[in-house]
């Protein structure tokens, strides 16, 4: 079992460290990790140190998945593949924005790798700029609320659906607040041959503005309000869904975070919150969460 070594520079309560630890616990020592630039990379490897205790390589944003493909091809060519798992682990910016072209290539070819997106819904490493995974109406440093807007004007990009459309044999959404569920899905993903995808929701205390002790609590609220549905897709079809018996109103999730605080103080905020409730309602209907 190879968790990240302590002494890394992640903020107190860091979601990336938790996500990386779950992946490492699920996969074990026989893994090679590819990691683009981002919080996880800068905090774990301040040169000349590294918190990783499995083989690890830093790639560019754009070529994370292709580097993983190359490692997998090299292992095969050298006859050293064995049970070694090649895992790419990138943030949401690296995944849904900058790296999407290379990821598309890897999933089109069906290379035998697993891609894990650790989605904390903005570019945290550089100072909380919005990404394609930032949710509707969230305040970030590049989507501040004001007289012209209520924050980020677009909903989250549906990356799992984009990957599933490539014909991936296994796509799953997870949350760091559901460790057993996440570790089971990661294990399943790496054991399935072909390019598989895990999209994990990861609440960031620094970027979302909540107390460092609430990282896990906030993630649970996202699932309980149906704003983050947990499901598995096999060969493009949804095959399992984690039910939410009595979905909580989205306010409970929103009010716990500084990035949505303006929705409770600005005029017209109520209507904006009802639009977010509509997103949760769509999830309940679309994924059959009840």
């Amino acid at each position, binding site marked *: 079992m190879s968790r990240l070594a302590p002494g*890394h520079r992640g903020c107190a309560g860091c979601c990336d460290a938790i996500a990386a630890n779950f992946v490492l*616990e699920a996969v074990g020592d026989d893994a090679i990790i590819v990691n683009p630039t981002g919080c996880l990379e800068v905090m774990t490897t301040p*040169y*000349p140190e590294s918190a990783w205790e499995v083989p690890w390589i830093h790639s560019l944003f754009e070529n994370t998945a292709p580097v993983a493909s190359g490692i997998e091809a090299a292992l095969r060519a050298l006859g050293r593949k064995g049970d070694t798992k090649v895992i790419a682990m990138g943030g949401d910016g690296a995944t849904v924005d900058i790296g999407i072209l290379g990821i598309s290539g890897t999933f089109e070819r069906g290379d035998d790798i697993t891609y894990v997106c650790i989605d904390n819904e903005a570019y945290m490493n550089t100072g909380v700029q919005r990404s394609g995974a930032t949710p509707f109406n969230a305040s970030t440093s590049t989507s501040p609320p004001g007289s012209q807007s209520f924050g980020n004007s677009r909903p989250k990009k549906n990356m799992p659906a984009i990957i599933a459309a490539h014909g991936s044999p296994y796509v799953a959404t997870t949350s760091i607040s559901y460790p057993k569920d996440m570790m089971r899905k990661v294990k399943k993903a790496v054991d399935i041959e072909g390019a598989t995808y895990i999209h994990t929701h990861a609440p960031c205390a620094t970027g979302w503005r909540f107390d460092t002790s609430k990282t*896990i609590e906030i993630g649970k609220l996202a699932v309980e309000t149906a704003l983050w549905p947990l499901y598995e897709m096999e060969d493009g079809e949804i095959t399992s869904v984690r039910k939410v018996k009595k979905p909580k109103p989205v306010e409970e999730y929103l009010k716990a975070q500084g990035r949505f605080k303006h929705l409770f103080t600005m005029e017209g905020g109520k209507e904006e919150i009802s639009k977010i409730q509509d997103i949760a309602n769509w999830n309940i209907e679309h994924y059959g969460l009840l």
Partner: protein
Amino acid sequence: MKVMIGGAVKPGTTRVNKTGGWRNFRPLYHKDKCVKCGLCSLLCPDSSIQEQEDKYVIFDYDYCKGCGICANECPKDAIEMVLEEK
């Protein structure tokens, strides 16, 4: 500083950086309440809670940043965050 080929670095070397100095609140362990579920150890972002052979845990104050996730998530309130005094 000698740069190795490919910028390679040795595994687990962040241990030289004792992040315990970041801490404002210290986790205080009430062993009598602990049911040995191991959740705190699993969740700790800084790998600073180790399960012992008897499944009780010990805290590594050299690295614990005092985030308080362990105390917040403990199902038995066996961990309490107290103000760090320096």
